[in-house]
């Protein structure tokens, strides 16, 4: 039977998709496609996305496959160890924060806060933690989509006898992360761009999958995000009008994350909100940018349904108005100003849409509402 030559095969594919082949080579490759429908259809599929996307996707797949193969056994041990370690750190943070009280008393408080009604000694919690972690592992093995779980989440599922306690545990983990200082944590950094035009996307949200830790890209679309764990961590990027995207964090280089415009989203409107003080907020653990109260999709539909295209817009043309405004922590929208506009008519319409539009939910930092500068692009076409 034929030899396996996937490596050559893939580079052939890549060169074909990139259009790097001579016409003769192209013909030879196309003849191969004609021979084998497997190749033919694969080529059809792969040419639907850019070759960079194809290569990075295959890279992700290769890693997922390796992870699937290289046994879950090691993971179990790792997870238990990590869970125990986190729990100990969580308790110690409490000791530090409440140094004046007797340590033994504090152990109880920490345990009680973390585990809700479990008013018992720290040792008991540790034991319970281990069994819970094992249970957690079984579930994870079954639903492999949850491949990477950051440490907080492990802590949560471990100590959380009841869902009510989840929030406490998360806060503790947050405090722990802050106490550890960013210097000891690996950090992912890079830029998020739109696959449509390769331009940076400001205000895109990045979270560590399975946690509430996140960051927001600055005006240049750049981000820095401390990782809470050293195992492969999945970054989730989200932005209005774009498909939610997941990618494995790579701390070895400056990452370039390309987001695809959402198929379902209405193409008329792209909403960009970004935090003017993004730089300061990057290192904070939980940050949620301001957004329309009705949700992003409903806001898109609102614009879609209500936008009045000025008659001066030639058909087929596309113009953009950029507006800036402040969403106060009360939710009030203030200081609406035109940052860029092709003309008065467009500015007026864009301003009207925001003034008459849905109310806004203020940005939140560690659960507290804060003022935020928001920028919006309204596209007329």
């Amino acid at each position, binding site marked *: *039977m034929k030899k396996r030559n996937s490596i050559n095969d893939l580079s052939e594919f890549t060169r074909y998709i990139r259009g790097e082949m001579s016409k003769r080579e192209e*013909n030879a490759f196309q*003849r191969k496609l004609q021979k*084998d429908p497997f190749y033919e259809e694969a080529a*059809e599929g*792969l040419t639907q996305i850019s070759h960079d996307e194809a290569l990075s996707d*295959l890279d992700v797949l290769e890693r997922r496959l390796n992870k*699937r193969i290289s046994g879950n056994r090691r993971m179990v041990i790792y997870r238990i160890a990590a869970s125990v370690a986190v729990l100990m750190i969580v308790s110690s943070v409490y000791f530090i924060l409440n140094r004046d009280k007797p340590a033994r008393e504090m152990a109880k408080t920490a345990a009680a806060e973390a585990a809700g009604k479990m008013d018992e000694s720290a040792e008991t919690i540790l034991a319970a933690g281990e069994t819970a972690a094992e249970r957690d592992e079984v579930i994870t093995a079954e639903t492999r989509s949850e491949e990477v779980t950051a440490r907080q989440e492990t802590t949560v599922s471990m100590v959380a006898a009841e869902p009510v306690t989840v929030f406490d545990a998360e806060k503790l983990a947050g405090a722990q992360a802050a106490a550890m200082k960013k210097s000891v944590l690996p950090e992912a950094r890079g830029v998020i761009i739109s696959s449509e035009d390769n331009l940076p996307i400001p205000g895109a949200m990045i979270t560590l999958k399975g946690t509430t830790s996140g960051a927001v890209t600055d005006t240049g679309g750049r981000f820095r995000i401390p990782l809470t764990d050293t195992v492969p961590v999945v970054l989730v990027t989200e932005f209005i009008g774009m498909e939610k995207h997941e990618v494995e964090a790579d701390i070895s280089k400056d990452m370039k994350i390309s987001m695809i415009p959402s198929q379902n989203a209405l193409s008329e409107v792209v909403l960009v909100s970004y935090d003017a003080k993004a730089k300061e907020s990057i290192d904070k653990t939980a940050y949620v940018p301001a957004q329309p109260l009705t949700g992003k999709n409903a806001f898109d539909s609102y614009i879609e349904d209500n936008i009045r295209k000025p008659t001066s817009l030639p058909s087929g043309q596309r113009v953009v108005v950029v507006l800036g405004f402040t969403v106060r922590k009360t939710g009030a929208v203030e200081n609406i100003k035109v940052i860029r506009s092709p003309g008065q008519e467009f500015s007026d319409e864009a301003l009207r849409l925001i003034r008459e539009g849905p109310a806004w939910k203020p940005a939140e930092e560690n659960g507290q509402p804060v003022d935020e500068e928001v920028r919006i692009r309204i596209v007329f076409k």
Partner: protein
Amino acid sequence: MTLWFAGKISKSRTDDDLINEFSSSGNLEALGELYSGYMHLVYGVCLKYLRNREESQDAVMHIFEKLITEIPKQKIENFSSWLYVVTKNYCLMQLRSDKSRELKYREWTIDPGSVMEMSYDLHPIDREDHNTDEALADCIERLKDEQKECIRQFYYESRSYSEIANSLGVDEKKVKSYLQNGKRNLKLCLEEKNEKEKQH
């Protein structure tokens, strides 16, 4: 250096070796090595049908799980074509199970080109020695002009889709469909000839 060498050796194992190793020992690494050589093809096919990167990536992983359970149960002669059928069926089932995309499913399954056969024969013109086949040359002469022209340029002058598209002033999709239809007609013509010979 050693690493490179080790890689070299493992790459030269055939599909059959790896399938046998997996079937007899359940060694996932063997199956993984086998699968990783086809992953780009599987992913490409998934993209074609599902039209979504994330979903296609999940599909590639699900198909791997399928292989783990299916391979030991089956006698596989040609892994590549078997995997192709498994992949395609998986994607079509995904489409069918989703109400909003059921239409797409019907579209794919009505098209005769997407009928799922467990094996497919190599078309005579895709064989290496097609140049010497007189019956084939005769059948090509009987094709409609556009089909004849495409077949001639593609198979006898080694020109690519884009070159042919340029010379005929049509787009590449059209070239592909001329080729496909031309080949189907050729096959019919050749079968007819064979029938006649048998009767003589």
